[in-house]
């Protein structure tokens, strides 16, 4: 008892000396808990008693954690969990600001509300980060930031952890059914019509856009009456330059392809660190499809024409931004 009293007297000095308010509060909490236990309370009630005296901010953290652990949070019908997305956002913010020094242009071409389909080129063999950086540009630079949903290669949804993560931050399996339903709910949807052909192309073919699938994205936009916003991304090709493929490994794990980059798999987990290229993202003028009407979605010729038009817009913008960017890494 006397030892405790001695510590309690010396405590205020050391606490004020520590610059961290959280550490101070924690020390305070433990001290009160100890007083409680020595006063004859059981540990749980003592902790409860001590928590009552915690400063407001720490109490709030406790409350939020408690609500989270009790399942009292929102999650929409797609499994998108806004709280979770906000929690992991700073990691992507770091990549956006520091690692890739992203410059975004024309972000006002993204509608502030209502449905719209963002269509972009796709690259970054090992792990394509382009969706997260486009989202970053909207969240950071748009006057009215909003979350966007994105189409993810469906193989990712057969994998543990990745499937759960993707879904919570707003990814859905790439399927026209999902895209149409999301657009009908007036969401902002990102699609990458090149798909695996875009991410899997060798480094020597960088920034050459591949075929835009079968034009399914135009069909989705026509049916749901959503405008298409073409987006050109520059910098994504250099993060994991694909030099070759590990075909036996890909077959063994059922992956569409496993790239070999200058660092992966040679450096093991370290090889997963993307190279710090310099990025530019340009949001082009929206393509309004309202003049065609939903029935035009059955017109194959029109789908191919519109798809090609969007592809050319993006290709053109990619070349322009490559020139504007200059050196890839500096």
């Amino acid at each position, binding site marked *: 008892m006397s030892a405790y009293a001695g510590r309690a007297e010396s405590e205020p000095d050391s606490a004020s000396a520590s610059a961290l308010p959280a550490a101070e509060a924690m020390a305070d909490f433990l001290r009160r808990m100890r007083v409680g236990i020595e006063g004859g309370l059981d540990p749980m009630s003592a902790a409860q008693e001590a928590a009552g005296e915690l400063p407001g901010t720490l109490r709030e953290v406790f409350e939020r*954690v408690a609500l*989270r652990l*009790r399942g009292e949070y929102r999650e929409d*019908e*797609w*499994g998108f969990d806004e709280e979770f997305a906000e929690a992991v956002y700073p990691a992507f913010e770091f990549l956006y600001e520091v690692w890739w020094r992203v410059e975004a242009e024309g972000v006002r071409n993204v509608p502030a509300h209502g449905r719209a389909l963002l269509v972009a080129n796709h690259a970054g063999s090992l792990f394509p980060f382009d969706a997260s950086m486009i989202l970053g540009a909207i969240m950071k630079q748009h006057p009215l930031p909003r979350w966007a949903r994105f189409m993810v290669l469906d193989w990712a949804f057969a994998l543990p952890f990745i499937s*759960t993560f993707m879904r919570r931050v707003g990814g859905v*399996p790439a399927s026209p059914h999902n895209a149409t339903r999301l657009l009908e709910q007036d969401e902002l949807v990102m699609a990458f019509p090149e798909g695996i052909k875009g991410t899997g192309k060798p480094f020597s073919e960088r920034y050459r856009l591949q075929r835009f699938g079968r034009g399914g994205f135009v069909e989705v936009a026509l049916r749901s009456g959503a405008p298409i916003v073409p987006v050109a991304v520059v910098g994504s090709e250099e993060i994991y330059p694909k030099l070759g493929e590990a075909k036996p490994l890909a077959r063994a794990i059922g992956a569409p392809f496993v790239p070999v980059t200058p660092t992966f798999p040679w450096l093991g987990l370290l090889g997963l660190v993307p190279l710090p290229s310099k990025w530019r993202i340009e949001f082009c003028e929206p393509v309004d499809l309202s003049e065609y009407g939903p029935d035009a979605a059955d017109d194959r010729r029109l789908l191919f024409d519109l798809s090609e038009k969007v592809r050319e817009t993006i290709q053109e913008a990619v070349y322009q931004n490559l020139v504007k960017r200059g050196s890839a890494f500096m």
Partner: protein
Amino acid sequence: MSAARRVVIVGVASQWGAELARRLERDPSIEYLAGIDSAAPPEGLERTDFIEADIRSAVLSRLLPGTRADTVVHCGVLWYPEPDKPARILHDVNVIGTLQLLAACQRTETLRSLVVRGSAAIYGCEGASPAFFTEEMARTLPLRTRFQRDASELEAYVDNFARRHPAVVCCMLRYQPEIGPGLDAPLARYLSLPVVPTQLGFDPRLQLLHAADATGALEAAARNPVRGAVNVAPTGSISLSRFLRLARRPSLPIPHPLFGPALGRLGSQLGAGPLYGDGVRFLRFGRGVDNRRLRTEISYEPRFDAEGAARDFVTKVAGRRIGPSLHPGDLAGRLAGVGR
């Protein structure tokens, strides 16, 4: 569509068949109500005429025309093995039984509508599947499990019957798995375990239908059948992790290749019983279906959405807890002084 007057419920001894009979008995506009099953229905049915017959036998073709039924509701499709109905009988009852019933329906000239209580398992569970299946998306993905193939086969027979008898309205209901406080089904038992094994790294989106809505939708479909398939599911979805958090059940993640065998062994010891083949995939990838057809065409609005059904289940089952909760959410909550 003329309202149902003479209704025959096949599989009246099952929970859903009996519940439907109970509801239809209260309706004076239904002049005749009969139930067919191999076992006697539960007590409490007053004016339901019980006909004892095995759905797999040809005797059905002699009995059914005699009832002069205008509506037949088939509740005899079995979703999972039960002690008295082992797995190998499932195929017989589901496929051969449905075939016999259709043969009997063919001879019943008074028949105007046929409602089948089928399963959304026909869509399967895949990582790549659309987040919400609509009715025309059946069989777009490979049929992987035995039950999925059976569901597909019996639907094919009903479709075929519907094509050849255009005067009969054939309504195929595709049910998502039900939960309810009093419901004794493998999934409900699994979710009531004190510690719930999950598959490491997977968090399926679930749509679990509240038992009240399961019967409500069946009654609505019997009264107002529409042609073709109709998904029966709550609106929205809930992830398994959130469900377990709401239920304050700690989860025990198991690497997914070991989940099936582990649950087979652990489940029977803990009283949950092993999960049938579909259950393991269901708890890895989940499944969502679109219920717009149910709401607009059958005009049945589910009382509980996916979250509501989970919360109702949780409040009624959590009362049975013994001892203090060891769930981290409760511990943190007590620290913050947030009441239960």
